[in-house]
């Protein structure tokens, strides 16, 4: 009985799949390969993989169309998109269409396997992922603390009934944190995902915004309810996040 996670790797560049597949095999996954969108869909139906790594630009059906068809059919297999064009709007759209995460080419293969693991850990079989839920909530053990609510469509966050006055950037940061709970997020990755650039000098920017967010969330960095700092590494959202209907 095979107990390694089964993943499908769909990319039309054989130079990529023929090198990435053995790498991912050694990283502990059972890998199927598809070279276009049509065959990706067929293989998903055939093998029902636990996760799909999907290139956006593919012949016969691009990655976004594959994703759209999957989700329309109520298939919530986690999808990690390999974005090609890499435009901010495109990435935002990818997440809205139900991708669980994305990675810009060219990426570090180690980063890919770390992301796959993180997405698999978060995945709840057969259910939509946090990344595709419009409303999220995060409770805490402290009964005095009201739950943190995030309405992604309305771009609003609140602690119980009290609305939080977040700047658009702070909201986007909180949104990324809450859709990637329990994952070590480096400053570089946050910059790339939330700000769209990750120039070395920018890491300070993340710290500034994180401090702003903590102040509004009344979160204590020493004993955090929501955002934990790991010195020299990055941030981790430690609250228990639930999708709301």
């Amino acid at each position: 009985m095979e107990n390694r996670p089964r993943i499908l790797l769909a990319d039309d560049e054989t130079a990529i799949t023929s090198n990435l597949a053995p790498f991912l095999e050694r990283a502990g996954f059972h890998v199927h390969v598809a070279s276009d969108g049509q065959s990706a869909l067929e293989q998903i139906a055939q093998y029902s993989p636990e996760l799909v790594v999907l290139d956006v630009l593919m012949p016969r059906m691009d990655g976004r169309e594959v994703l759209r068809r999957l989700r329309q059919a109520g298939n919530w297999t986690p999808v990690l998109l390999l974005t090609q064009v890499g435009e901010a709007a495109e990435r935002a759209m990818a997440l809205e269409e139900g991708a669980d995460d994305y990675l810009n080419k060219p990426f570090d293969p180690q980063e890919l396997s770390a992301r796959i693991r993180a997405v698999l850990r978060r995945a709840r079989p057969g259910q939509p992922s946090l990344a595709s839920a419009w409303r999220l909530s995060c409770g805490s053990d402290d009964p005095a603390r009201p739950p943190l609510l995030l309405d992604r469509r309305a771009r609003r966050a609140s602690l119980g009934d009290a609305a939080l006055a977040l700047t658009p950037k702070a909201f986007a940061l909180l949104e990324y944190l809450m859709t990637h709970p329990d994952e070590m997020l480096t400053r570089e990755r946050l910059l790339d995902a939330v700000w769209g650039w990750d120039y070395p000098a920018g890491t300070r920017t993340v710290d500034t915004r994180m401090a702003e967010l903590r102040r509004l969330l009344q979160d204590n960095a020493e004993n955090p309810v929501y955002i934990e700092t790991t010195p020299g590494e990055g941030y981790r959202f430690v609250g228990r996040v639930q999708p709301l209907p």
Partner: protein
Amino acid sequence: MKIPLRVLLSVTPLILGVAAALALPALQVQVPVLIFRADLRNLILILTGLASLVLLACALRDWQLAERQRQALEEALRQQEQARRRFLRRLDHEVKNPLTAMRAALANLEDAGQEQPRPVKDINLQVERLSQLVGDLRKLAELEERPLERLPVDLNDLLAEVVEMALSQPAYAGRELHLVVSKVPWPLPPVTGDRDLLWLVFYNLVDNALKYSERKHIVEVRAQEDGRAVTVEVADNGPGIPPADLERIFEELYRGVNARGIEGSGLGLALAQRIIQRHGGSLRVRSRAGPGEPGGVVFTVRLPL
């Protein structure tokens, strides 16, 4: 409103004619060629008036021609700029897949577990460097399309933060870096924009000033406002930028003669200029680095209020 010199020159005959008509006594003269007699003063007025009209018409035509040429030139420049960006984007796109494949192949070598030979390590490093470059170019292009946050930004705070951050870098410890922000009669008013991007611009400028000068040199950041804009200058008395480099330093990947051998992406200033332009401001540079000149550079950022 300023009246262009050309218009003034064109109406000069008429003005002179009016003056002459006022000065002259009434006098009937025979108009040459024509058969009737006329008052000399009227004649002068008519002739000078005609001369002024012709001159004005010429001026107008020249002005229209110049305007058309300017528009054509602007259009050509715009198209050139677009073509350049399209090219960069295509290049970026075509380079991504091979780089991804190379990184995967290298990761497989690494996975084999043995200590890697030196050449493989070198290839690894260089592939990473290329990936970084490709990513940076993409992000630069993306800045154009991303919506810009438009919130009040307090430059008093921001500049203090930038200076503090620069001085906290081990490489710049003990450097002479001064911040002069006008406080009287009022502190700098807030500008509207994206704080994080503006932070990046000023940090880049300060970092450059420190990076391309030596310990003995001074870097000064000064800010003031004139009611219409805030002007921030980042100045240093380092070696300066040679005149031949000055007009190119804002281009992507351009690195001046003084920058060779110093680590950098060649994108910082291109990025800074793009950001300032998107804020409706301007970024300019002055330097005195010709032969026999003392050196020194001033970058001037103007952000509208």
